[in-house]
């Protein structure tokens, strides 16, 4: 499938390309998974592991790490602002898109995603290793700030979108959106107190953006899903959300990089904040 018609085709790398460019200079391959031991069972040669919870999130407060910790994380993984990070992972790249989004929060611009992620790489029988790469530490200047205002939305902002009828995209499964279940399918231990969705949100499950092999759908298909069917447009503001922000990172990536929408923000507090919050308005639909 050609990716040339995407708004930013350079952000997607294909498995075949990566297999031939494992030693590409100024490049770091980064694996981020939901399965926390998956990297240790075998990874793309040269890849480092960045853990969404231990590395990117503050360990006490529900928030991301501070800029100085981000600089330290990059430094120990040999990443500088000039390093192109190619993210890949399990679950059709949920967590790699989440890590990419977190890197963007700190202003790191040189980011790419391996189309199809870890599963596609493995299914194609490509090389994996358990050997952890020997990394020469680098110096990453501490970012001046996090770009929370640019690509992240908070509760009050999502509420304002709801009240003003601005586009809100709920990327969870239909059952979660309708409020018939209060957890993600297969994760009953992660429930919330109330089911439903943010009033006015449209339900567009993240999975609609990918093919069977986890690779992204064509630009024509993506435009149909998001622009024709949901009336999103490149210049309009959009807020996406799920439960904790990982599935919505995937949709944020598709909208921002593949369709070129310039004002998309990820509400990472998502339903675990909204569905537990006292007084938060909720809509249910059949």
């Amino acid at each position: 499938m050609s990716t040339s018609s995407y708004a930013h085709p350079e952000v997607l790398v294909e498995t075949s390309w990566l297999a031939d460019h494992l030693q590409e200079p100024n490049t770091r391959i980064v694996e981020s998974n939901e399965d926390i031991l998956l990297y240790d069972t075998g990874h793309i040669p040269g890849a480092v592991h960045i853990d969404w919870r231990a590395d990117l999130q503050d360990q006490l407060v529900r928030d991301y790490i501070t800029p100085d910790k981000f600089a330290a994380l990059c430094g120990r993984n040999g990443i500088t602002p000039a390093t192109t990070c190619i993210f890949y992972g399990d679950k059709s790249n949920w967590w790699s898109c989440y890590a990419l989004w977190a890197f963007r929060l700190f202003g790191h611009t040189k980011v790419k995603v391996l189309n199809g992620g870890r599963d596609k790489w493995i299914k194609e029988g490509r090389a994996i290793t358990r050997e952890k790469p020997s990394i020469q530490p680098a110096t990453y200047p501490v970012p001046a700030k996090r770009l929370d205002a640019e690509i992240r939305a908070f509760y009050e902002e999502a509420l304002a979108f709801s009240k003003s009828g601005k586009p809100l995209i709920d990327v969870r499964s239909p059952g979660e959106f309708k409020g018939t279940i209060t957890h993600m399918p297969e994760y009953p231990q992660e429930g919330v107190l109330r089911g439903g969705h943010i009033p006015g949100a449209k339900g567009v499950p993240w999975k609609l953006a990918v093919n069977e092999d986890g690779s992204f759908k064509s630009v024509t298909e993506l435009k149909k899903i998001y622009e024709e069917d949901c009336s999103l447009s490149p210049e309009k503001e959009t807020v996406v959300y799920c439960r904790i922000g990982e599935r919505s990172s995937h949709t944020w990536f598709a909208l921002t990089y593949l369709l070129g929408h310039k004002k998309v923000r990820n509400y990472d507090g998502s339903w675990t904040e909204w569905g537990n919050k006292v007084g938060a308005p909720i809509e249910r639909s059949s």
Partner: protein
Amino acid sequence: MTDRGPSGATRLVPRSNDHRDMADNCSSIDTEKSPQEDGPQTPLPRKLQQIVELFQSLPEEGKRENLILYADATKKHEPKDGESFDLEDIRKDEECADTVGVFLKVNPEGQALFRVSLGPHVQTLTRAMTAILCRGLEGMTPQDVLTVPSSFVPQIVGGQLVRVRSQTTYYVLSRMKGICKVYLDRKRMAEVRKADFHQ
């Protein structure tokens, strides 16, 4: 709801990918927590205690390496060709990312042998815990399996790895307890029927 599995054992649920079916089925055989389950006095079986002690002696990196070794070993604990079981419980339910089959054989001495089959999408930590439990619970009676506390899990895995999205580390233990409970219930029923017949 039951039929005969390939080994001749009673299968608890059909092999199905339908979530609704499985949710309905599993609700009937889930194990309720026994009163002593989380009690601090309940000792672990010897083999499991040895594994816990090994992990407790390891640094974080060593724990991870050993968990990977155990995860690699799960194939050894799959049902073998020609093996027969007293009970089979194969299902994909909401608590795990893929199908998990639990197979129970109880020998004439009343000791349990577990075999477990795991679908390809089961998380690595759950795979590791499967191999640990198959080894750690081998030789226990089904009754004693019901009393094994789940508090050993963080002792093995380490606090860092038990978190959101890794809670299925507890899942296989609950499935093993579930199949033991069904085994014991059926045994009890059979004894009652036998006693009634002789009266």
